[in-house]
């Protein structure tokens, strides 16, 4: 961290290396476009490198800080695509993914959500982040983060109870 803060790009690359996979998942779900997701992660990495001083050496906050930069980059990418044509993800064939399967239905339901609704779902379910960290990435309070997760989950499946989500 110290050498990264001192301007060593390789150190910074090593620092964020474990975060690239979660960052990519987050971007791919938000953008529903794998190529654009990799571009967003790359761009976010450069922005994070330039803003590293904002982190003030707090390694514990690195993941939330970096993922919030990735989420912002995804929002920016979507704004730039003003013509509004979003490519759907190239979904791999999977027995579970056949129409009628529970996983298929959830995927379809998730793609109907807005990117900002998908974001808390990825953070909470897939990346399994604590509520406080989700809140930091979303720039809201933990209780607001919790209600966003629940609201988004209920939009995918309306009969869900809080206990099934948390």
């Amino acid at each position, binding site marked *: 961290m110290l050498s990264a803060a001192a301007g060593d*790009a390789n150190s910074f690359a090593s620092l964020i290396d474990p975060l690239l996979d979660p960052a990519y998942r987050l971007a791919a*779900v938000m953008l529903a476009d794998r190529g654009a997701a990799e571009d967003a992660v790359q761009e976010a990495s450069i922005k994070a490198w330039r803003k590293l001083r904002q982190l003030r050496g707090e390694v514990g906050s690195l993941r939330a800080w970096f993922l919030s930069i990735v989420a912002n980059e995804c929002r920016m990418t979507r704004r730039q695509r003003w013509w509004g044509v979003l490519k759907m993800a190239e979904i791999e064939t999977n027995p579970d993914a056949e129409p009628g399967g529970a996983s298929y239905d959830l995927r379809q339901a998730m793609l109907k959500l807005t990117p900002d609704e998908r974001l808390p779902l990825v953070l909470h379910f897939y990346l399994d982040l604590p509520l406080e960290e989700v809140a930091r990435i979303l720039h809201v309070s933990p209780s607001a983060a919790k209600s966003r997760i629940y609201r988004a989950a209920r939009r995918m499946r309306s009969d869900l109870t809080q206990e099934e989500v948390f």
Partner: protein
Amino acid sequence: MSNENFRRQVNDAIDQISGSPSPALRDRVRSSLTSAPATSGSYWIAAVAAVVIAVLLVGVLVVANPLNRRSPVGTVAGPTPTPTPSTPGPSPTPSPSLPAMVCASTQPGAPSSAPPVLFIDSLTTGTHTGYDRLTIGFKNGSPSSVEVQVQSGTTFMQSPSGQTVTLQGTNGLLVTIRGADLHTDYTGSLDIKTGYSGLVEIRRVQDFEGVVQLGLGISGPGCYRWFLLANPDRLVIDVQTS
């Protein structure tokens, strides 16, 4: 459905949407990081350079403003004993150093240190060998923005009424003076018919919101010159007659 069951289904859905990142992503990120500048210092330098260039450009434009093509200001001559159908006033004597006649529209001059509103207090006409003259007198300064437009025909649109008016003559000149007023100190006629061979009629077309427009009905090709005189401040428009 249990919590774990729902979580597993959501994660499956996310897996299907996202797939795995390409193996090249790590190298791609590393390579872009090592080639990118650590801070935005270079952008600051570029921004400062852009500001300096902009300031230099503005300076050059101010010094050598291509729009500021004002005619030379001459000296005051004594009144000319020529017939004037409107309010009598001083009229300049023709001088050999006058600007050449032009037959095309001229652009307005750039704003200068003229007062916010100039009060026109006289419209005087005179005829001379080769040209007819309209002299517009100002009470409190010299106009900073004068535009003369040549038009075929003598129909002008009055503002703000939008009604058209047709003057005597065959062609027209529309004189626009910005930052001026024709109703505070001027009490003469607003439709002057001169009876001259070149400049045959002058009529107020607009005197509204600090813009004064005078329509000039002329006989002939519509060649003219304009220039400013001081002590008192006047705008002189000569219309060629031969």
